[in-house]
C-alpha cells in the first residue's frame, strides 16, 4: 500500500528522523530501511528521499558527512543532530496524539486500521 502524498509529507520526515535515531545511515540504506521496515507503506523513491534529506539538513535536524565506507565506496552519511532529536521527540508526541484521536474516532483500532 502506498500512502497519499500529503500524508507522506507529514510522515516521511518523522520516519527518516526515527531511522536515524539509532545511528548514522546513507541514502540507499535509508531507502531500503524505509521500504522493508514499513512493508512498503513508506516506500519513497530517491526523487523524494534526497530532497527530504536536504530539507532536514537545511533545517539543522540532521547533518551529513562524506566518508569512505569499508567497501571503499564514498558515501554520505546522515545523523541526527540535537535539534533533530528534540524535533523527533515532539513529532512523536504529536503522532501519538493523532493516532489516539484516530482510535477514538474508530479510524484505527489498537490492532491497525478499523
Amino acid at each position, binding site marked *: 500500500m502506498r500512502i497519499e502524498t500529503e500524508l507522506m509529507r507529514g510522515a516521511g520526515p518523522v520516519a527518516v528522523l526515527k531511522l536515524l535515531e539509532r545511528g548514522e545511515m546513507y541514502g540507499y540504506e535509508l531507502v531500503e530501511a524505509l521500504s522493508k521496515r514499513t512493508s512498503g507503506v513508506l516506500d519513497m523513491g530517491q526523487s*523524494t528521499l534526497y530532497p527530504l*534529506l536536504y530539507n532536514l539538513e537545511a533545517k539543522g535536524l540532521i547533518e551529513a558527512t562524506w566518508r569512505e565506507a569499508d567497501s571503499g565506496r*564514498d558515501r554520505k552519511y546522515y545523523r541526527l543532530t540535537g535539534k533533530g532529536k528534540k524535533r523527533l521527540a515532539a513529532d512523536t508526541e504529536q503522532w501519538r496524539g493523532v493516532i489516539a484521536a484516530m482510535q477514538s474516532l474508530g479510524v484505527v483500532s489498537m490492532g491497525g486500521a478499523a
Partner: protein
Amino acid sequence: MSTETERDSGTPTAREGIRAAITPPTKGNGGQGFWQLLETDLGWFGFARTPIRAEQVIERAALPAAHRVLIARVVKRTKLWRRERADVARELVAHFVDGIGAGASEAGLVSAFGDERRAASLIRRAKKRGRGVVWQVWKRGWQGAGCVVLLAVGAYLYFGLRVWTSSPSITRNYVAELNAPALAVPESERGWPLVREAILAQAKPPTFTDEDGTVADVVVGEARPGTKHWSQVVSHLRQSERTLSLLRAASAKPALARRLVLDDDRELMVAVHGMSPTGGTHPPPEYPDMIGILLPHLGSIRQCGRLLLADALLAVSESQSERVVEDVRAALWLGEHTGEGEILISRLVGLTVFQASIQVVAEMVAETPSVLSEEQWRSIAHSIASAHGGGRIILPLGSERAMFDDVLQRTFSDDGRGGGTLTSEGLNYLSSMGLPGELNLVLGKPTDSSGAFAPIAAAIIADRRSQREIFDGIVCYQEFLAGRPLWEQPTKAEVARRIDGPLDGPFARERFAPVGLVLPALRKVYFWGESVTQERDALLVAIALEIFHRRHAAYPASLAELVPALLPAVPPDRYTGKPLNYVLIGARPVLYSVGTDLDDDAGLHPAKSATRTRVTNRAADWIHPAELERLRQEKPGSIPDGDWVLYPPLATREE
C-alpha cells in the same frame, strides 16, 4: 542494458550525453557568474576534497550509461551552483552504486528513482534552503524589492485606472441656489443698485497729506474731530455728499439683494478695481465655480461704512442730530446686509462695519450724548439690538458647506451614494487652487496633474465620502461650539483635538486637501463673534444708562434698575455668564467683563508693562479656567491683571 566497458569508462555516446546534460548554457563570459568565479576545480577558494564538477563526478562513476545520463539530467535541471551540483551528483552516484552493489537491476533502480523533473525541482528547493545566511538575506532582499516594485506598479495601475477613467459629475449650481433669495427681492426693494452707484461715485480713494506734503496713512473712519488730519477728512466728506446720500437712501431698502457674480459687472470692476476695459466679458458658465466667485465690492462697502461713520462724527460736531441718526443707521444697515447670502467672508466684512459702528456710537454716548434726543438714542439702540438677528452673533456656515459640496462635485466622481473617486479633472481643479506643499511637489504644475503623477496623487487624496466625513465632523463641531457661550467652551486642547486632529496625522493635510481648501479658521471667527456680542450688549446698556441719567439726573445703583423699562434683561458677562459688571468711577459709569483672568478688578483696564504689550483682554484672549491656572504658574505675568473694560470706549477714556 549497459555493458561493463561502458560502466567503467563510459562510451563516447554516453559521455557526450552526460556533457550535454550537465553543461549549463553559456552566456556572456561563458556562464561564469559571481558565485561561480569563487569556485575553482579545487573548490571554494581552493579548499576542496573532491573533484568539483558534477560532470567529472558522473563520468568517473562506475555506473551504466542510463544511470549516468539520468543523474546528469537531474543534476542539470537543479540549476544549482557548481559545487552543489557536484555534491548532488556525487550522492546520486553513490546511491546507484549502492543499489547495484545490493543486487538491484539497472532498470529497477531507474524506475525506483521516480520522476526526475520533480526530483530536480525538490532538490533545488531543498538545497537552496540550506544555503548560508548571507545568501538568504540577499535573496529575501531581492524578493522583497521585487514585491515592493510589483505592489507599487499594481497600485499605480489601479489608481491610474481609477483617476483616468472617472469623471466628475457636476449637477448642482450652488451659485444660483445662493442667488435665489436675492433674485426674489423686487427690484424696487433692492439696496444694491444704490450702493453700487455710491461705490462708483466714490471710486477714487482720497489722499491725505502731512504738513510737509507727504502722503499720510489716514483711515477715514478712524479719524476723529480735533485730530491732525480731521480738516482733510471733513473736506473729503463734503466732496462725498452724493455717495453719502445714496448710502442713506439704500438703508431704507429692506435688502441689499446683491447677486453673487463672477465678473459680469465690468463697469464696477473697471472703475473700482482697475480691470482692463478692453477685456471681453464671458457668458456665465452653466455651473459657476463657487470658489471662483469674486467679492470685490466688500472692500468698497467697508470704505462706505467708514465714510458714513466719519460723517456721523462730523454731524455730531455740527450738532446735526438727524444726520447722525441717518449715518449711523446706514452704517448699521451696511453691516447687517453685507452678509446676505451667507457667504462667510461677506458676513465677516459686514461684522467689521457693524463693530466699527457700535464703537463710534459708544464714543458718542460717552462724549457727546446730548446731541441726540432720548427718542433718537432709543431709535439707534433698537437698530443696534435688532442687527444680525439680535441675541448672540453667530456666523452661519451654510455657504461653507455649499462651497465644499461644489468642490467635491468638481473633484470626484459620484456613485450616487455619497462616494466617488478622484478624477483627473478634479486633480487639475485642486491643483489650480493651490495644494499643500507635498502634493504640489508631486503634481508639479496644474497642467501636469492629470498626467503621469495623477495616480500618485489619487493614492494620496482620500475619496469623496472620507472628505465629506472629515469636513462634516469639523464643521458640526464648530457649529456645536458656536452654539455655546464663552463660559461653556471646552479646553483649547479638546478643541484642537476635535478640529485640528483629523488634519494632523501623517499626510493628513494632503489626504484631505479639499477640506483644507474650504475650511476657514473658524475658531477665530467664533471669538470675534463673542467679542462683538459683548461690545454690542455693553453699548445697549450704556445707551440705557444715558437715558436713565436723563430721566433721573443720576445713574442707577445697579443695572437691574434698567430692567424692564430700558432693557429687556441685564446682558451677561461673556467670560462668566453672570450679569455684566457695572461700577461708577468718578461719577461716570463703567461697564466691564472680568476678562481673561476671571478676576473682578473693579473696572480697571490692564496696565501696559514691559513684558506685556497686549492689553485688549477681549473675548479673543479667552483662556479656559483649567488652562488659566497652569499658565499662571508656568508664565507668571502673562495673564493681564485687569478687566475687559467695555464702556467708556478706549478712545474716550484716560489710560
